[in-house]
């Protein structure tokens, strides 16, 4: 055991050093009480493993980071203790060439299997994997009457490249695995050497549909690293943009649900609401997808409050009318109910976030972390069924709460303002609740104030790992697009 037991402080990030021999025991202690929010490595020859733990308890919300210097190319197989760590174990192997001590098979997450050990030109961090590439892909067993049905990466629905490995006996989904590496852009690699302000451009484009959330998380990380205080009015401006982002995303998810269930008129109704919300974004902040609002140290512009007050009620009215009509359509609800079920236990073990986790009964929400503009008045919508319908109703409740919050923030005052970040070394963690769930960013700055290591963890990077479980829960082929729409994830966020 460690001399000091890691504990969270509400609203704070507490960092503890954990020696490598004690790491497994610490993870065993923390996993039942806290959520493993992220795991990543940094450094070159002297690699440090960092685990980010979140306390989701209302009033106690905060983060703990454990730092473990690794002297060798291996570390304990943490996913055996905390399954939420598996995807990151795969990623760390690809980026740094270090792997769990048990030598367990790992999937390819970022780099394609045929790439082999990273050749020059492929974005990577650290040194090369020392093991042959065929060991870097977990084998999927197909037996009995089941067969594997390859689907993607180019698909009719969904503009992002995503490969489904569907194992089926004809109609029922027996197993499903995903290849998400087709659009890997090496963004964490690209951020090295950039100033936080330069890095924001890339953070916003990591997952364009979460531009505000990821931008805010990265900016907050840099502000924490440099001890920069952001004016409260600027924080509220970020929150207005973030809630507008949530609104248009939930409208888009509703349209996708209609499309996946073949309800064309419902899809059009939801897309009318979506288009109005996007136009509102453009009028309020000068960009339909809210790019460029967040700046390192504040915000680059104040919202057009009059435009929001004038347009939002009508735009949200479209959203509400479409939602009400859908909730009154039995043939639509029948497709959603008991489809893609995830239990609270599954969501907790996998460390899922956002509406997906909340629909299963876990009230995790980064807006609850004390210290931000939200205070403790945000209503967190949860469900219990964990199915597509629960996710849909959680999104509808969140949209209503977003409208209320936007009004509150505008009344309290919003303003443009950027505090200059000092050029100093340091490290910090930042977070924001994106429409898909908690987005995290961690940055380490050198003496010149430039990034030496950045970690971006969009909510999609957490929640895709729950998608295959949801699809396997007694669903058939045609349920998969419905489940995918209800998760409302991006491949870009995973394959950053």
């Amino acid at each position, binding site marked *: 055991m460690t001399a000091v037991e890691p504990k969270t402080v509400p609203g704070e990030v507490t960092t503890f050093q954990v020696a490598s021999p004690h790491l497994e025991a610490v993870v065993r202690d923390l996993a039942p009480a806290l959520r493993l929010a992220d795991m990543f490595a940094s450094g070159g020859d002297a690699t440090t493993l960092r685990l980010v733990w979140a306390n989701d308890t209302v009033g106690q919300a905060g983060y703990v980071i454990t730092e473990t210097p690794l002297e060798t190319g291996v570390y304990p197989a943490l996913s055996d203790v905390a399954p939420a760590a598996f995807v990151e174990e795969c990623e760390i192997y690809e980026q740094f060439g270090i792997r769990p001590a048990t030598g367990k098979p790992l999937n390819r997450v970022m780099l394609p299997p045929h790439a082999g050990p990273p050749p020059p030109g492929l974005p990577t961090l650290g040194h090369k994997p020392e093991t042959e590439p065929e060991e870097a892909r977990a084998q999927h067993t197909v037996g009995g009457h089941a067969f594997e049905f390859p689907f993607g990466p180019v698909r009719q629905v969904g503009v992002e490249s995503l490969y489904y490995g569907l194992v089926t006996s004809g109609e029922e989904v027996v197993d499903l695995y995903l290849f998400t590496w087709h659009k890997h852009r090496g963004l964490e690699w690209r951020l090295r050497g950039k100033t936080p302000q*330069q890095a924001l*451009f*890339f953070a916003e484009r990591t997952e364009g549909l979460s531009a505000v959330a990821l931008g805010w998380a990265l900016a907050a990380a840099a502000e924490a690293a440099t001890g920069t205080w952001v004016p409260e009015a600027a924080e509220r401006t970020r929150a207005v943009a973030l809630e507008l982002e949530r609104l248009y995303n939930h409208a888009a998810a509703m349209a996708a649900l209609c499309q996946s269930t073949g*309800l064309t*008129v*419902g899809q*059009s*109704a939801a897309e*009318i609401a979506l288009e109005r919300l996007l*136009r509102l974004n*453009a*009028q309020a902040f*000068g*960009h*339909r997808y809210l*790019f*460029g609002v967040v700046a390192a140290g504040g915000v*680059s512009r104040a919202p057009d409050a009059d435009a929001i007050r004038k347009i939002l009620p009508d735009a949200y009215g479209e959203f509400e009318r479409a939602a009400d*009509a859908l909730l009154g*359509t039995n*043939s639509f609800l029948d497709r959603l109910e008991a489809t893609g079920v995830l239990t609270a236990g599954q969501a907790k073990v996998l460390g899922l976030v956002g509406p997906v986790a909340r629909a299963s009964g876990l009230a995790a929400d980064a807006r609850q972390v004390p210290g931000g503009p939200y205070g403790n008045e945000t209503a967190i919508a949860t469900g219990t069924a964990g199915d597509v319908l629960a996710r849909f109703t959680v999104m509808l409740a969140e949209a209503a709460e977003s409208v209320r919050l936007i009004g509150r923030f505008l009344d309290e005052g919003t303003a443009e303002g950027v505090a200059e970040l000092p050029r100093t070394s340091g490290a910090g963690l930042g977070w924001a609740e994106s429409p898909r769930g908690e987005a995290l960013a961690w940055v380490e700055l050198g003496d010149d104030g430039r990034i030496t290591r950045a970690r971006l963890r969009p909510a999609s990077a957490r929640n895709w790992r729950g998608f295959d479980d949801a699809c396997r829960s007694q669903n058939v082929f045609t349920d998969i697009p419905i489940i995918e729409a209800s998760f409302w994830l991006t491949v870009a966020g995973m394959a950053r």
Partner: protein
Amino acid sequence: MTLWFIRGLRRGVVTTRYPARPDASAASLPTPPSFRPQALTSQTADRLALICPSGALHRDRRVLVYDVGRCTACGRCAAEAPDAVIRSGEFELATTDRSVLIKKIPVRGEAL
């Protein structure tokens, strides 16, 4: 389903008349920059090339080469040098010839 059919008919057409008529929302869209050669010095051009996050700008001796195809209309150049750069207001940029998207802007005081 019948109710949805009626609902759709009742809602009517919501699309705008664009391109026959200008779209009212176009005014609030971010648009690529337009450069004022008379205010563009070589130092300013170098500064703009340095801050452009998508590599759309570089200086080639006496001209600033602007690749509209690489520009994301992020507005960083206009914010950096408001005297030399303004937003163009132009967003209809489609072309069948890639070279049309490469603009060469003379730097002040130096012949092209």
